[in-house]
């Protein structure tokens, strides 16, 4: 009889609320191997683990499309709602009205947002609803086999040779104009930047609009596409380096205030933006829009945190309702007593 020695298992990595990374995993993905969306799901898992987000407080919401399937692939112990095409913003709004203590993570796609859902997208941004709105942006409709979406660049080519002859909608520029208060663009292949932006997003209490270029390996990863892995890698123009310091870590960071901006988010966490362009100010709307437009003209895929406003009241604050979830207010709080009905009836006699 031989004996085998079992090597001691490495100590489990636990986060600040005592959960393991596996507690944040979802079901196995059914998207294509290499799909950018899977990388984004991975970053969401990591960001939630690192920050110690309580999974039961997260609501995962989506519309329809490849992107909208992905909430099933992260945070299995969070409630999820795969709704109808282009309507995730209204589902998110209702969800947050019912229970303002939730952390809503909405996953949409470029078709789901910029075409069928553009009306709800626009009004969500206006309201500054506290939620994280992620566009997994690949410029095509994947689930219906590769038609152009409204974020496809002018002149971009489909696999079958069709050239896009309309200009793209820049969802970030739109979100900034309309009133979102944390607007960024990233690339599914840029782990570090995406991770920092997602962590910052989880610390922000307003509408986060995060457009993540997420190549479609099946329908839009060829020569002539402007949303392929190689095109985005070659044209990615980060505004600078983004790093995130969570509120629960007492870290002093040395930085040069001449080249780095520090932004304190709602929960006390900080974002450090080390800028390539020392003049760029992410709290200045007009400036941001100018930089975005110039990048378009140069054919660059500008990424990074474009705009942040931590002062503007969010939708919940504007509506001024009670702090506890409306959904579970007791009958004594929501059904006025009989004397109120009597008073109203007397007034109608």
């Amino acid at each position, binding site marked *: 009889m031989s004996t085998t020695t079992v090597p001691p298992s490495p100590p489990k990595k636990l986060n600040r609320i005592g959960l393991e990374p596996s507690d944040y995993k979802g079901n196995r993905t059914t998207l294509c191997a290499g799909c950018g969306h899977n990388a984004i799901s991975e970053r969401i898992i990591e960001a939630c683990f690192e920050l110690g987000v*309580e*999974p*039961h*407080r997260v*609501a995962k*919401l989506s519309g329809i499309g490849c992107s909208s399937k992905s*909430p*099933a692939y992260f945070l*299995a*112990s*969070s*409630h*999820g*709602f*795969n*709704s*109808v095409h282009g*309507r995730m*913003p*209204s*589902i*998110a*709004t*209702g*969800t*947050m*009205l*019912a*229970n303002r*203590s*939730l952390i809503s993570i909405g996953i949409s796609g470029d078709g789901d947002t910029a075409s069928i859902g553009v*009306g*709800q997208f*626009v*009004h969500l941004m206006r309201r500054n609803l506290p939620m994280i709105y992620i566009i997994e942006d690949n410029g095509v409709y994947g689930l219906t086999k590769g038609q152009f979406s409204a974020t496809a660049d002018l002149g971009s080519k489909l696999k079958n040779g069709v050239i896009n002859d309309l200009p793209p909608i820049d969802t970030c520029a739109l979100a900034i104009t309309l009133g979102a208060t944390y607007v960024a663009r990233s690339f599914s292949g840029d782990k570090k930047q995406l991770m920092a932006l997602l962590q910052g997003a989880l610390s922000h209490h307003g509408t986060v609009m995060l457009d993540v270029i997420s190549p479609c390996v099946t329908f839009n990863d060829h020569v002539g596409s402007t949303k392929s892995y190689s095109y985005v890698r070659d044209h990615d123009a980060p505004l600078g380096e983004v790093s995130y310091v969570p509120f629960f870590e007492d870290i002093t960071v040395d930085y040069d205030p001449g080249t780095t901006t520090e932004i304190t988010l709602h929960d006390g966490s900080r974002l450090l933006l080390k800028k390539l362009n020392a003049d760029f100010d992410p709290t200045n709307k007009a400036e941001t829009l100018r930089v975005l437009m110039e990048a378009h003209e140069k054919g660059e895929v500008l990424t990074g945190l474009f705009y942040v406003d931590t002062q503007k009241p969010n939708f919940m604050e504007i*509506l*001024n*309702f*009670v*702090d506890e*979830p*409306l*959904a*579970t*207010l007791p*009958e004594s*709080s*929501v*059904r*006025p007593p*009989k004397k*109120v*009905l009597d008073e*109203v*009836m007397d007034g*109608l*006699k």
Partner: protein
Amino acid sequence: MGTVDLAVREAATASSRQEKVINDLSIQVATVNGSGSQSANTVLLRSIFRMGIPVSGKNLFPSNIAGLPTWYTIRASKNGYIARRKEIDFLVAMNPETAEEDVMSLGAGASVVFDEKLKLQRLRDDVIFYPVPFDALVAPVCPNAKLRKLVRNMIYDGVLSKLLGIPMEGIHEALKQQFSKKPSAVDLNFSAAQVGYDYTEKNLPKRGRFYLEPMDATRGKIIIDGNSAAALGAMFAGVTVCTWYPITPSSSLAESLAGYMRRYRMDPETGKATFAIVQAEDELAAIGMVMGAGWAGARAMTATSGPGISLMAEFVGLGYYAEIPAVIFDVQRTGPSTGLPTRTQQGDILKNAFLSHGDTRHLMLMPASVEECFSMAIEAFDLAEEFQTPVFVMSDLDLGMNNWMSGPFPYPEKPMNRGKVLSAEDLDRLGGFQRYRDVDGDGIGYRTLPGTRHPKAAYFTRGSGHNERAIYSERPEDYVNNMDRLSKKFETARRRVPGPLLQEPDGVEIGVIAYGSTHWAIVESLDQLRQEYDLPVSYCRIRAFPFAEQVLDFIRRHQRIYVVEQNRDGQVYELLRIEADAEDIPKLQSVRHYKGLPIDARSVTDEIVSREGKK
């Protein structure tokens, strides 16, 4: 036709012309939209109500802010009939555009109060004319020329007060109620009414046979419109989220809700609201927000009308399959687009019964009165959460926007029924749950709310492709299993929704089935049939879909059943044909009223009499 309907009054005999008619008349005020006649009309209605006479008012208005013809009809009825009456006894002709046609459509013996300069006397010699110099009378009491247009309407209240016998104190009291927030308007308006009264006393001797006399049939009663009543119901139902998009005739439901909630649903300690009311960007978003809120556990509602329902169709179908509570008030109106958006219809019944794609069936409540607008609003929220499904409350423009007399609404007796929702403690005890499993044999699964602090609480919500554990599935057995459970849930609802109200004299072969605001014409028509034609008829008022078994039993017990409704296609008639026993289908006959005007008793009576071969 210039006026709302061609009066088909039977010629009065010479003797009956002399007979005094007390507390049984209808007044029609014809004005121009935007001329401020609403206050004068409401004051007139309320001052008759204050005399203790049952009264109802109906506003027949165009889709327009100012300039087009509008009519307001007040009916006083000692018998308590409050349906619209076709025949007009007293016309107040203030609109030069329609005055001639309005006069021509009157029956012989009617009276006309009119603006002197219209010179309507020349038109007929079989009606009674009361010319009034409105402009000359209003000028001295209202020096402010800008206000004159509004105030001059009060003059006809004074004229009618004198001609019909409405006490001026009652007009004064009604004015105080009308302008409770603007006391300065009371004196100005009352002096205008007084001028009308005085002029009439001096210059217009009373002719004709219509009189109002005090009685005691309105003590303790209230006057309210259906939309306000539904809003009150929603507030007492404990609604916490209302998301809506403006559309006539439902806007005033959400707006009155906002008014009541601001007054009565602010936390007394913090001053914070215990609700959220959001005007959405469109009906797609309004219903989406309701779905999100219902999914997350709030009592959520929207209010809309036919075109809005069309936009909500996709989400309502998802609500059926994802099993999300939602309350949708559908204040029905006529037609799409610019159709007749300010006219009433029961036009969305068939559409809502099966709204959306795939196999769907929805619960509908059908209030007939303002009291039912209130009580069914409360019932709708309970049903929505109990059955985890969208529930429609099928009001209409007539019910929703017109003033109705009613008994005071009863305070809800039952506590709120929040349905099968599992807490973290429940999950500890059970060790988990399966969202779409029929544990209790009633087709209704258990749900959890997002935010429930338990590792087994979460589930993933999507459309029809899921198994009992809410896992995505395209397996045929899973799909069929789910569909059959949903059918079972619908059958459970059939036994739970409000049953019909039945009125059955012994040994009667003929029955009437009706629902919603049609009820009031039926009540009156049944009396006409019995008194004028010796034709006793049974009555079954449907109050919900799915139809309770008692509705089908009613059909089984009768030989001929007239299904009376306010649409062209006999929508409930068609639904009954789907649900009735095959041998009963030929018994059903459809009686349809679709003029855009509220149905009246005489039309129903004439139709039934004609089909019964009595005429």
